[in-house]
């Protein structure tokens, strides 16, 4: 495979001030993207993932029911997991069965497949500060091996300050619909992710250090800009990708 093509994208940031500071269009959580029966118990992580995923599919004009998916997140369902860990150490701690099965890393991926009646494979991935880069690499590998199109969703809800002082803000989700090879009319083409040092404005580097999933920022910024000269953009502190078109 020579390249993959970006067909559509969406970004979600619930904090209005943070949203306004982003160098690409983003929107607030859209709870309408979550089926009513799921809405009440949905985590912020799931709301971010669903909002971004639905927007990307709409932008790409693709049906979510047909797309294999990769859901990438540094901390997954961290608020639910935190709640369970807090309960577990109480003498009379209560273990909620639904909180337990909603604490797995693939919660958003699973509910997305259920809500969209999508029987295509769904994966859930984590790689610390390389999460966005490794998710792009996994997309590359799936598209190169199997062809077709797929949905990549990257998201993280904030995690409690006591778990990781100075890290875990702000909530953010983004999604990309990508296709194997060169697709006419696509937003841009991406090469295979490669290792390489980051080239980031200091303000962005500071944001990404606080919330590793924001490593998607340079790529989203480039996607939102209508330019066609080739450019290398950082997708993590250790990985980069060449984009064109």
């Amino acid at each position, binding site marked *: 495979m020579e390249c993959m093509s970006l067909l559509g994208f969406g970004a979600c940031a619930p904090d209005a001030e943070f949203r306004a500071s982003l160098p690409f269009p983003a929107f607030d959580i859209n709870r309408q993207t979550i089926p009513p029966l799921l809405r009440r118990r949905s985590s912020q992580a799931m709301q971010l993932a669903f909002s971004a995923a639905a927007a990307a599919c709409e932008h790409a004009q693709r049906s979510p029911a047909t797309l294999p998916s990769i859901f990438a997140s540094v901390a997954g369902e961290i608020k639910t997991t935190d709640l369970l*860990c807090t309960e*577990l150490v109480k003498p009379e701690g209560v273990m*909620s069965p639904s909180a337990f*099965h909603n604490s797995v*890393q*693939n919660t958003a991926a699973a509910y997305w*497949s259920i809500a969209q009646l999508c*029987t295509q494979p769904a994966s859930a991935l984590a790689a*610390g500060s390389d999460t966005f880069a490794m998710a792009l690499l996994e997309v590359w590998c799936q598209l190169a091996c199997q062809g077709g199109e797929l949905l990549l969703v990257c998201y993280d809800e904030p995690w409690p300050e006591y*778990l990781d002082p100075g890290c875990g803000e702000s909530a953010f989700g983004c999604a990309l619909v990508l296709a194997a090879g060169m697709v006419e009319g696509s937003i841009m083409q991406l090469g295979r992710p490669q290792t390489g040092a980051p080239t980031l404005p200091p303000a962005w580097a500071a944001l990404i250090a606080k919330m590793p999933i924001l490593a998607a920022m340079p790529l989203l910024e480039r996607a939102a800009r209508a330019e066609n000269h080739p450019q290398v953009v950082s997708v993590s502190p250790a990985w980069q990708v060449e984009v064109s078109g």
Partner: protein
Amino acid sequence: MTIPQIPPVSVTAYQCVSAAGDDVEALYSSLIDNRSCLKLLQLFDIPFETVVGEVTSPLPEIRPSLKAYDCRNARLALKALSQGGFRAEVERAIARYGAARVGLILGTSTSGIYDSENAYARLRQDGVMPGDFHFLQVQTAQATAEFLRLELGLHGPCYAISTACSSSAKALAAAQRLIATDCCDAVLVAGVDSLCRLTLRGFNSLQLISPQACRPMDAERQGINIGEGAALLLLEKQSSDNAGRPRLLAVGESSDAHHMSAPHPDGVGAATAMAQALRLAGRQVGEVDYINLHATASTLNDLSEARAVVSLFPNPPPCSGVKGLLGHTLGAAGAVETVVSLLALERGFLPGTCGLKRPDPECLFPVVAAPNLEFSPRLILSNAFGFGGNNASVLLEAA
């Protein structure tokens, strides 16, 4: 759409630490003896009755420079790495291909959460987390992947797949793709999960835990037992040097799109995953000699898988499941049971189904109760199905 086939990769080394013991030899002995390794939990107290597949032998220390990653999960992985010359095999791959060409994919469900729970106990008591607790290096899904990468000096791609109980089966799929796309020449796949309060009490809250040793596919089954383990597999691109090694042909993947904690009752997604593995490898159902079942001993799971097997195979091959021996090792199960399947391929036997006395009458295919030493399978499917209906089926072939 026709899915293109994927080239096989060689499995040049594998190792496993489990309740059966510290290495594959101990695992092989338990499989041949069909002896349950499930015992009362020693690691911590739980407020209900069950048995578990616990690793009770001492775990190695994490070296001082990697102390931030210290947790039971990392120690289990390090222990497996030290067994039977496995580390030397990884070092040989690094020397041969270069550290940047060797990747690492971890499959785990709860990572180092056992150690997080201990930190939360301190938080409750002292009002602050212990100073030596490192969230990103212990609790997040990638923590033990990053530990192994640093421990071994690998510089290739490194990430974790965390799709509950299909995690490490899907890690094998991701690793095979990294080699097929020439991103890597070799990939270390690790399936690691450790016992913790979260999963034990969580599965208990779902009323899925059996008080006694579990009995997969048995009419009298009462639920599951939780286990822990670390299974490591070294995958390499095929070459004349590794032609004598067994092969990973393909991993089929699918989603049930049905329910968060219950499989599709007819096993539609499970059947799709098995069929997809065969299609990706260009093989036919009639070629499969043995199926290593997911068979957790939960009634819904067992019957869903049984229907999947019957729907796909006009004449099902012998099938069995090993969770009565080892417990359900959750995110590690896909890799642990791939190791079981590789032992069956290489040493020529069919594992039994420890605990099986009277197969569920709804289970309409031959379930192997006692190990069969007279049968040498050549093509094996090994199933791993997770929460959210996340399915993977691993297809392996003898050399």
